[in-house]
């Protein structure tokens, strides 16, 4: 640890590595824009009422025009406004799923990796293996199908499919780091187990965990959209991008704007998170020089 280097310099170094690739900046801009839109959806969407139970059949299925840039759907609701509110739901799904899965997943992986020869390590990892043995989308679908379809249950279903990946990621590196000299040294001077796990081993995993979190944001949105596409996610009239695509696909190809614009919105979010994730990956690659 070089204490002579100020915090500011360290961050500058990270930012330099991140911003070397233009695509990372594009990703950051996309996500910043989407987050901003989601937060301000109430005020910046042209027709906020369209997000809820609103009908205007006189103006149903109108093609994109100056007053409705993305057109209107089968109930006459403004699609641009619904896309703005749809971002809000997508980001909420990501925030909920990752905040309930990452921490427990990481802690379980740390414990299982540090106590690799103890019985509970085997129990944790075999449990993770069981969850990993079913593709995440299928697991989420089947959990969601047993529960009542709703936004909250969709979040629960996706979360159940998500935690073992973090456990496995942290486990594999923790079980090798525990044999490193610095961990041995900490054990020798009598550091507590908590100190070793969270202060010695965990910091060495933060880069890979953070990269996975960013890349996973895209996957969570994708799985959430798939769930609502088949009708097992958020229910009408919640403006959800997956539901909007599914509903709009019935009006293809005549009223293409009903499903194509929400689809484009999903593509932008997922692409943004992937570019951002790649940038963060580069940032942590080979440490801070």
């Amino acid at each position, binding site marked *: 640890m070089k204490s002579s280097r100020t915090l500011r310099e360290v961050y500058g170094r990270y930012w330099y590595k991140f911003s070397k690739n233009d695509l990372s900046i594009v990703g950051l801009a996309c996500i910043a824009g989407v987050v901003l839109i989601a937060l301000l959806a109430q005020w910046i969407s042209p027709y906020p009422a369209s997000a809820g139970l609103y009908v205007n059949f006189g103006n149903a299925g109108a093609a994109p025009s100056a007053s409705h840039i993305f057109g209107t759907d089968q109930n006459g609701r403004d699609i641009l406004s619904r896309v703005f509110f749809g971002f809000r739901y997508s980001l909420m799904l990501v925030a909920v799923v990752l905040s309930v899965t990452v921490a427990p997943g990481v802690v379980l992986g740390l414990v299982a990796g540090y106590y690799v020869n103890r019985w509970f390590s085997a129990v944790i990892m075999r449990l993770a293996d069981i969850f990993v043995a079913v*593709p995440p989308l*299928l697991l989420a679908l089947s959990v969601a199908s*047993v529960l009542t379809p709703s936004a909250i249950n969709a979040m629960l279903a996706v979360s159940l499919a998500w935690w073992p990946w973090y456990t496995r990621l942290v486990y594999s590196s923790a079980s090798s780091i525990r044999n490193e000299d610095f961990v041995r040294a900490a054990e020798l001077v009598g550091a507590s187990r908590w100190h070793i796990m969270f202060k010695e081993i965990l910091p060495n995993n933060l880069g890979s965990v953070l990269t996975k979190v960013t890349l996973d944001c*895209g996957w969570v949105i*994708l799985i959430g959209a798939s769930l609502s596409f*088949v009708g097992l996610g958020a229910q009408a009239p919640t403006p959800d991008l997956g539901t909007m695509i599914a509903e709009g*696909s019935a009006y293809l190809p005549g009223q*293409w704007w009903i499903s194509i614009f929400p689809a484009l919105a999903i593509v932008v979010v997922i692409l943004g998170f992937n570019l951002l994730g790649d940038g963060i990956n580069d940032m942590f690659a080979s440490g801070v020089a």
Partner: protein
Amino acid sequence: MVEALRLQLHLNDPVYTQYFYWLRGIFTGDWGIALFTQRNVLIDVSDFLPATIELILFAAIIDLVIAVPLGLAAGRRANSIVDNGVRVLSYVGIAVPSFVVAILLQLFLGYGTHLFPLIGRISQNVVPPTQITGLYTVDALLTGNLSAFADSVWHLILPAFALALGPIAQEARIMRSSVVENLDKDFTLSEVSHGLPERTITFKYLMKPSLIPTITIYALDISAQIANAFLIETIFIWPGFSKYGLNAMLSKDLNAIVAVVMVAGVMFVIANILVDLVVGYLDPRIRLQRRTEE
């Protein structure tokens, strides 16, 4: 009446006893009755599974045939047009959900130009081939029914491609990076300095080691497609296992859901075991290690 049913379904027994009844049923072929087809789930699954296996196999073939040469070409000539194309494709493949790809393909190639059929496994005026394996293409070839073969391949192309686009992007990207990595290795340098023709180096010595990470991800991707098939089969009204599973889920038919998840999980695990075997075959280090241990 209700009490008789409760007894018949062992609902009065504790959960773990019920679990053993279920387990016994799984091994003796009694998978319970699917409420929405009124048939044994095992019969349903074996009826619907071949269509999905055919779809996934086709997607797997398309994936391999497109992704490996693309990745090889992109890695061999870094920063060329092909390389940049692969980079764009890989982002498209990751960011565009498979159900959106499916809808777009259906719209432009099916509806717009009538190049491909919109839905189903086979045209209504074509008699399906005699059932041997349940895979229409294989059955048609076995019975020498070429028109049915052509027709079912024609129906397979769009859904299989919609299913394969994501994995193609992934595999091309991994193939590219492992080719780039192997180009830097000493063995490539020594081949170049021995004056081996570029073609020999690329196809004989570069491709094989680069395939190892690609194949690993490839198999995982393909076996994970059984989940994506849930959406694709719905869009293309493909009468397969995943569409059956989705119907079961939408009507909350527990016997069928449990069976679908179990069969998918078993297929996933089998695919993983196969990967380990194939990687062991491709990587001489693993193969030789095993031999010295024996």
